[in-house]
C-alpha cells in the first residue's frame, strides 16, 4: 500500500476521536434525563451537547470512517496506488477544519439546533459552513473513488471490478445523490437565513429537502459494514462468498432504493399528501429487500465456512464457525442487533403505524440499535481487521477485541430495549429533564436508569476500543502478510460480468427517474402558488 496507509490511519483516528467525545456527551445526556441528579445541566448545555453528539455521530465520524476505509479498499482491492493522493490529503484538511469550526460554534452555545437543523431555528453561520466543508471533503473522496475505479477498468478491460471496490463506488455515487437534498436546503435557505440575507423561509420545503438526505444517509453509513459482510467476513470465517453476482445486485438495489424513500420520515407532517407518503412507504418496503437478501447470502457464505470446518445438521454449522475471530464474532452480534433494529424500523415505516411511535423514544431506540449497533460494531471489526496492514504491526490481543465487541453488544441492548418500551408508553424526544413528579412520568424512571446503565457500558466499550487500537502502536510484532489476503473469493469468481453489474450508468438513470417520480411533485408543490413562509428564529444571539 502506498498512500492508503497514512490516509486511512489519519481518517480513522479522527473518526474515532470524534466518536469518543460524542460517547461521553451521550452518557451525560442520558444522565441528565434520568431521575438521578446530573451536573452542568441547563437547557443550553443539554441541547448544545445533543447537537454535538448528533453532528459527530451522524456526520463527522461516519464521513471520515468511510473515506478512510474507502482509500484502503481502493489500494488493496484494486492492487494499485491511489490516484491524486494530494487531493485526498486536501480533502482531509478541509474536512478537519470544517469539523473543528462546527465544534467550536456548538460548544460556544451558538448552534443549539441539533444535527437535523430544524429551520426556522437558525444557528450561527459557522456551524453550517463547518458542515458544508465536511461534506465538500467527502465529495472530493467520491470523485477519487470513481477515478480509481475508472482507471482500473481502463487498465483491465473486460474484467469485473473487484466487489469491494464496486460497492465502495456504489456508495460514493449514492452519497453524491444523497447530499443534494441537504445541500439545497443549506445553500438556498438556511445559510442565507444565517447570514441575515433572508428573514423568512419555507419550512415545508426545508423539511422535504432534508428528508431526501436523511434516509439515504443511513445507507451511506451502512454500506461499508455490508462491504465487510460480503468481501471480508467469508474469508475470516474460512469460507467463500456464496454469490458475487448477488453481492453486486445488493449494492445496486441500495443505490436505487435508498433515495426515493425519505418521506417516511415525514409521515406525520401536514405538508405532504397521503398519496406520496404511501408511494414512498411502498418504496421503503422495497429497500428492505437487499437487507433480507444479505441475511441469506451471508448466512449461506457462513454456512459454507461452518460446514468446511465439520459443522453438520440444519443449524449445527453455526456452532462450528470460528467465533474467536473478531470479524466473525462482530458479524454474529451485528445480525442479532439487525433483527431487533430491523423490527423497529419496519414499525416506523409502516404508514399509519408511525403514529404510534413518531418522536418517541422508540425512534431513538431504533436508530441507535441499527446504526450504533449493527453498523458501528462492524466499523470496530473493520478497524481491527485492517489495522495490522495499516500500522505494520500484529494484533496484540484478540481477547481484548472480543471483549470490547461483547460489551458493545450488551450495552446497546441494555440501552435500547427499554427505550422501545418507553416509546410505546409515550415518552417523547429531545427533553433535557423530565418532570418525575408527574405520576405517569415517574413510572418511566426505573427504565430510564436501566437505559443509562447500558450507555455507561457502551462508554466503557468505546474507550476499550480506542485502547485496543493504541495497543497496536506498542505491539512489537511486525505484521507481514499481504493486505489483499483479507478479501474473500466467491464460490464462482466471475470471469466476466455484464456492464450493468460493473458500472453505474444504467443505475444513475434509474435513480433519476425514481427521484422525479417520488420527489418531483412533493418538492415542486412549494413553488406553485403562495407557499407560506415562517420567520427566522435565531438561536445564536448573545445573552
Amino acid at each position, binding site marked *: 500500500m502506498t498512500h492508503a496507509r497514512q490516509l486511512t490511519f489519519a481518517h480513522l483516528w479522527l473518526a474515532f476521536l470524534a466518536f469518543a467525545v460524542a460517547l461521553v456527551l451521550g452518557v451525560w445526556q442520558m444522565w441528565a434525563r434520568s431521575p438521578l441528579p446530573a451536573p452542568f445541566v441547563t437547557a443550553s448545555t443539554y441541547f448544545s451537547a445533543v447537537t454535538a453528539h448528533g453532528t459527530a455521530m451522524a456526520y463527522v465520524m461516519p464521513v471520515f470512517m468511510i473515506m478512510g476505509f474507502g482509500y484502503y479498499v481502493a489500494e488493496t482491492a484494486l492492487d494499485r496506488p491511489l490516484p491524486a493522493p494530494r487531493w485526498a490529503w486536501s480533502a482531509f484538511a478541509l474536512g478537519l477544519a470544517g469539523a473543528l469550526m462546527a465544534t467550536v460554534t456548538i460548544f460556544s452555545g451558538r448552534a*443549539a439546533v441539533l444535527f437535523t437543523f*430544524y429551520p426556522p431555528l437558525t444557528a450561527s453561520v459557522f456551524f453550517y459552513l463547518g458542515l458544508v466543508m465536511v461534506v465538500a471533503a467527502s465529495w472530493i473522496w467520491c470523485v477519487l473513488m470513481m477515478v480509481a475505479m475508472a482507471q482500473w477498468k481502463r487498465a483491465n478491460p473486460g474484467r469485473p471490478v473487484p466487489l469491494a471496490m464496486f460497492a465502495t463506488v456504489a456508495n460514493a455515487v449514492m452519497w453524491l445523490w444523497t447530499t443534494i437534498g441537504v445541500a439545497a436546503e443549506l445553500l438556498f435557505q438556511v445559510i442565507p437565513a444565517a447570514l441575515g440575507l433572508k428573514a423568512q423561509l419555507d419550512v*415545508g420545503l426545508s423539511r422535504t429537502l432534508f428528508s431526501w438526505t436523511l434516509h439515504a444517509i443511513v445507507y451511506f453509513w451502512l454500506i461499508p459494514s455490508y462491504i465487510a459482510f460480503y468481501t471480508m467476513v467469508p474469508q475470516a470465517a474460512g469460507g467463500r462468498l456464496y454469490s458475487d453476482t448477488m453481492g453486486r445486485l445488493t449494492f445496486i438495489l441500495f443505490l436505487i432504493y435508498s433515495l426515493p424513500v425519505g418521506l417516511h420520515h415525514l409521515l406525520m407532517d*401536514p405538508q405532504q399528501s397521503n398519496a406520496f407518503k404511501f408511494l414512498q412507504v411502498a418504496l421503503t*418496503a422495497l429497500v428492505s429487500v437487499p437487507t*433480507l437478501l444479505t441475511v441469506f*447470502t451471508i448466512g449461506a457464505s457462513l454456512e459454507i465456512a461452518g460446514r468446511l470446518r465439520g459443522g453438520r445438521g440444519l443449524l449445527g454449522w453455526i456452532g462450528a464457525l470460528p467465533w474467536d475471530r473478531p470479524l466473525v464474532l462482530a458479524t454474529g452480534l451485528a445480525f442479532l442487533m439487525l433483527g431487533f433494529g430491523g423490527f423497529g424500523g419496519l414499525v416506523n415505516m409502516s*404508514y*399509519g403505524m408511525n403514529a404510534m411511535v413518531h418522536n418517541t423514544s422508540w425512534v431513538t431506540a431504533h436508530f441507535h440499535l441499527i446504526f450504533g449497533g449493527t453498523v458501528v460494531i462492524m466499523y470496530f471489526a473493520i478497524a481491527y481487521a485492517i489495522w495490522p496492514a495499516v500500522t505494520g504491526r500484529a494484533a496484540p490481543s484478540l481477547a481484548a477485541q472480543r471483549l470490547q465487541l461483547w460489551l458493545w453488544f450488551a450495552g446497546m441492548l441494555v440501552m435500547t430495549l427499554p427505550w422501545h418500551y418507553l416509546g410505546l408508553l409515550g415518552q*417523547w424526544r429531545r427533553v433535557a429533564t423530565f418532570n418525575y413528579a408527574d405520576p405517569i412520568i415517574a413510572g418511566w424512571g426505573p427504565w430510564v436508569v436501566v437505559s443509562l446503565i447500558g450507555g455507561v457500558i457502551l462508554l466503557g466499550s468505546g474507550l476499550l476500543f480506542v485502547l485496543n487500537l493504541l495497543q497496536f502502536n506498542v505491539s512489537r510484532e511486525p505484521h507481514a502478510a499481504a493486505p489483499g489476503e483479507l478479501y474473500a473469493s466467491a464460490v464462482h469468481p466471475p470471469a466476466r460480468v455484464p456492464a450493468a453489474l460493473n458500472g453505474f450508468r444504467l443505475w444513475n438513470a434509474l435513480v433519476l427517474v425514481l427521484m422525479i417520480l417520488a420527489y418531483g411533485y412533493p418538492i415542486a408543490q412549494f413553488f406553485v402558488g403562495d407557499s407560506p413562509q415562517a420567520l427566522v428564529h435565531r438561536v445564536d444571539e448573545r445573552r
Partner: protein
Amino acid sequence: MPISEEIIVRSELRWAAISVGVVSVIMIALIYAGLVHHINPPSNIERIDPKTLHLGGEFTEANLGTRVSGDGQVTSRIVATQFTFQPRCIVLPANRRVTLRFATPDVIHGILVSGTNVNTMIVPGYVSQVHTVFTRTGDLLMPCHEYCGLGHSEMSATVRVVPPDEFKPDAEGRVACDAR
C-alpha cells in the same frame, strides 16, 4: 465442479420471492388498516400564514379550545408556540368522533396524545388536523415532541377525555377545562 452459479442465483431468487412475500403481507395489512380501520397519517394539506394567524380567523385566542358546531361536530383548536400550548388543557368527549386542529406562528412543534394514535407535526405555514375517537376517559398527556428551542422540555398540555354525559357545551358550544 461444485454446483453452478445458475443454481446459486436461483436459490437467491427463491429467497427474494419469500422476502417480497413477507413485505407484501405487511403492505396489505397497512392498506387494510388505512381503509377499514381508518388509520392513516394526518395529511390534510391546509396552508395558513404563520405571521398573521393570531390576528383574525380560526386561531384567534377567543376561538381556541373545544367547540361544538351547530351540526354537532366537535373541534378543538390549539396554537403551539415557543414554549406553551394555548390552551394548555382541552376537554373532549369519549366515544365520539372529534377533530383536533393545530397551528403555530413560530417554529416546528409536534404532539402526541399518550396511549393513542394521535400524533402529528405542527409546521409553521400549515394547519395540522387529526380526526379520532377516544375510547378511554381520563387525563392524557399531550407533550410537544419535536425540538422547538431551549424551552422544549417544559412544553406540554393535557387532553381531558370525559364520559359523553359529562361533556356539556355552553351556549356558544364551548367546553373548557375547569380548574381541578
